[in-house]
């Protein structure tokens, strides 16, 4: 009895449901579709049904993020408490005693720089602390050109090179540098420091491999860091170690996807002054299929018969170096930097080098000065000879004759890097800080005797936390910049003064630690 009732009820509901379903628009199509698709094949229909059910489920699922959020949930009170407790770190860290003493004694020049400069205290000193190697700063021909350009073009380009900042003088400077070096093309940057730190990331990306010398300068280190590439280091100027690293890279990469590989090094090293062996470097590059980014910041306008740099000095075809990066700011007395290479290399940078794209172009006057300085160097190569003669004289006074210091620079390098001899360091157990203090005393003593020199401030250059195992201890050093603007007699005299200053500082009672008990 009850069962029958239920049955009728169910059939009634089913009828109602069927009628209701038939009234829904499109239901006839659906029924026809299901009927025609069944075709006596339950397995296939089941597969389709499962797919449709999965599809509907997917469409109805709420979205969620897969990135793991690891923030700690804090209450408002806790946030207030943390804000209360927070002590801002000073933007500039407090100066150490040494830095403070150094700041107090910092010499200030009045008037133009030159072989003889006037200080703010009224004293005129021999200036061996400026990169004015050929005294082009005082060259009337260049000055005249600069003044003319200033009158015609005004003081600044007021725009990035790709945004109305490029003027004919920039294109002339680029063409002049390319012709001078013997490369296909050249690109001029507005600042020398940012040139290489922009060239490296323009070519090297994440996953690429850079093999770099351990002693590369701060600007290169910045570039390496920004590039996000894998950095491998080789011992300073040790090309056998370089070959070992390159061989390892080639072996490791043999089965992987092809990546770009670069060698990054300097022609004349900023922190030690020594020279690279370019022919051997090119041999290795060809053998293991790397590209070379060569920083000629300190050698452009310095090495070679007409100052073309390391390529001229070691008789290497400049087109074999993929990118030559140099500075126009040092001996050329202009400003800015450049990268010379093949047409592709240069044009790539015009849109992808950050320092070129995002900073205002070089002032027209400086671009013209660079062109003119190159002209002067090419037409009077004897000024390089004069400068080298002065380097030889100064070196003879300092390197073999001093009991305390030795010169690590290459004989052609006008920047003489003078470090304490290892036996002095060992005998007196000098720490890096001791050496820095002594070097500062030497500078002060030399200045007191009328010779302005500076010292290599290396500790900030070389330690960089974000570059793994790339730390390099720069030995504190004196930096003596030779200039052809001094007569031979003056040069010898200045070098002798420096030698005596070092001897005086080192023989002071207070600086002799020999009487201390051994630790």
């Amino acid at each position, binding site marked *: 009895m009850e069962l029958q009732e239920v049955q009728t009820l169910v059939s009634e509901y089913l009828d109602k449901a069927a009628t209701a379903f038939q009234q829904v628009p499109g239901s006839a199509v659906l029924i026809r579709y299901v009927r025609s698709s069944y075709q006596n094949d339950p397995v*296939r229909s089941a597969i389709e049904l499962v*797919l*449709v059910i999965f599809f509907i489920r*997917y469409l109805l*699922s709420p*979205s*969620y993020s897969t990135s*793991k959020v690891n923030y700690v949930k804090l209450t408002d009170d806790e946030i207030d408490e943390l804000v209360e407790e927070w002590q801002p770190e000073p933007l500039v860290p407090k100066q150490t005693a040494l830095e403070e003493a150094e700041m107090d004694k910092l010499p200030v020049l009045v008037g133009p720089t030159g072989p003889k400069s006037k200080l703010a205290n009224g004293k005129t000193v021999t200036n061996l602390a400026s990169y004015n190697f050929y005294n082009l700063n005082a060259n009337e021909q260049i000055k005249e050109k600069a003044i003319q350009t200033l009158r015609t073009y005004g003081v600044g380009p007021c725009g990035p090179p790709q945004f109305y900042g490029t003027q004919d003088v920039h294109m002339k400077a680029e063409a002049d540098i390319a012709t001078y070096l013997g490369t296909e093309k050249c690109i001029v940057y507005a600042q020398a420091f940012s040139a290489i730190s922009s060239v490296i990331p323009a070519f090297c990306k994440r996953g690429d491999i850079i093999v770099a010398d351990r002693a590369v300068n701060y600007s290169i280190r910045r570039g390496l860091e920004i590039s*996000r590439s894998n950095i491998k280091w080789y011992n300073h100027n040790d090309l056998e170690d370089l070959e070992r690293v390159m061989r390892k890279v080639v072996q490791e990469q043999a089965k992987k996807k092809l990546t770009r590989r670069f060698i990054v090094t300097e022609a004349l090293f900023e922190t030690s002054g020594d020279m690279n062996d370019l022919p051997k470097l090119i041999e290795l590059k060809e053998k293991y299929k790397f590209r070379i980014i060569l920083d000629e910041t300190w050698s452009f306008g310095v090495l070679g018969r007409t100052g073309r740099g390391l390529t001229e000095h070691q008789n290497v075809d400049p087109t074999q170096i993929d990118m030559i990066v140099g500075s126009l700011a040092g001996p050329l007395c202009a400003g800015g930097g450049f990268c010379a290479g093949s047409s592709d290399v240069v044009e790539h940078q015009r849109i992808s080098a950050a320092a070129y794209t995002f900073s205002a172009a070089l002032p027209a006057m400086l671009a013209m000065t660079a062109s003119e300085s190159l002209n002067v160097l090419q037409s009077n190569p004897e000024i390089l000879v004069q400068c080298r003669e002065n380097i030889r004289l100064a070196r003879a006074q300092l390197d073999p004759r001093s009991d305390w210091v030795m010169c690590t620079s290459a004989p052609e390098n006008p920047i003489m890097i003078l470090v304490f001899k290892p036996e002095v360091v060992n005998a007196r157990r000098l720490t890096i800080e001791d050496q820095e203090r002594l070097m500062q005393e030497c500078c002060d003593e030399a200045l007191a005797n009328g010779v302005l020199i500076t010292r290599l401030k290396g500790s900030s250059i070389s330690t960089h936390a974000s570059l793994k195992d790339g730390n390099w201890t720069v030995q504190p050093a004196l930096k003596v910049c030779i200039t052809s603007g001094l007569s031979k007699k003056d040069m010898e005299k200045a070098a002798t003064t420096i030698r005596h200053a070092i001897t005086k500082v080192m023989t002071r009672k207070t600086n002799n630690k020999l009487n201390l008990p051994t630790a």
Partner: protein
Amino acid sequence: MADQAGRRRRSSSILQVYHEPPEPIEQLSDQSALPNLNANWVNAKGAWVIHFVLIAAVKILYDILPGVSQETSWTLTNITYMFGSYIMFHYVRGVPFEFNGGAYDNLNMWEQIDDGAQYTPAKKFLLSVPIVLFLLSTHYTHYDLAYFTINFLAVLAVVIPKLPISHRMRVGLFSGVPEED
């Protein structure tokens, strides 16, 4: 799906399943430095319409080829779309146009869309297209078993990598798990 933690070196076997390890903080900050133009366009107007336009174009192309039956034409359209979308969304990794120092080099486009979030509108749409196309093509191939099998395998090939479970999952066939640098 064994190890969520990251790539793990195992003894060699024919099939290796592993997950892409999480990016270091430096890479994450590079990823978020700029909007990801490679993946964001799927949310743009017109990006959805283009699927239908392309499918229609492919269908017309196969229809005008002489000697191609309706069944073959539908199957070819289906396979072409699945193949193309597999290449685009699941095979190619990284960003074809260089703009963020290779911050997305390890991820395919599907994993880049909406920063890897699942079940977002764009992803729901992109999953619907192959399923609807598959149902249409089985219908118009009159449920022939051979065509059905081909079409079904093709749709599986693009649906499985779209599932949340396949997020950052990699399958290596005859090749070991890549070493980390």
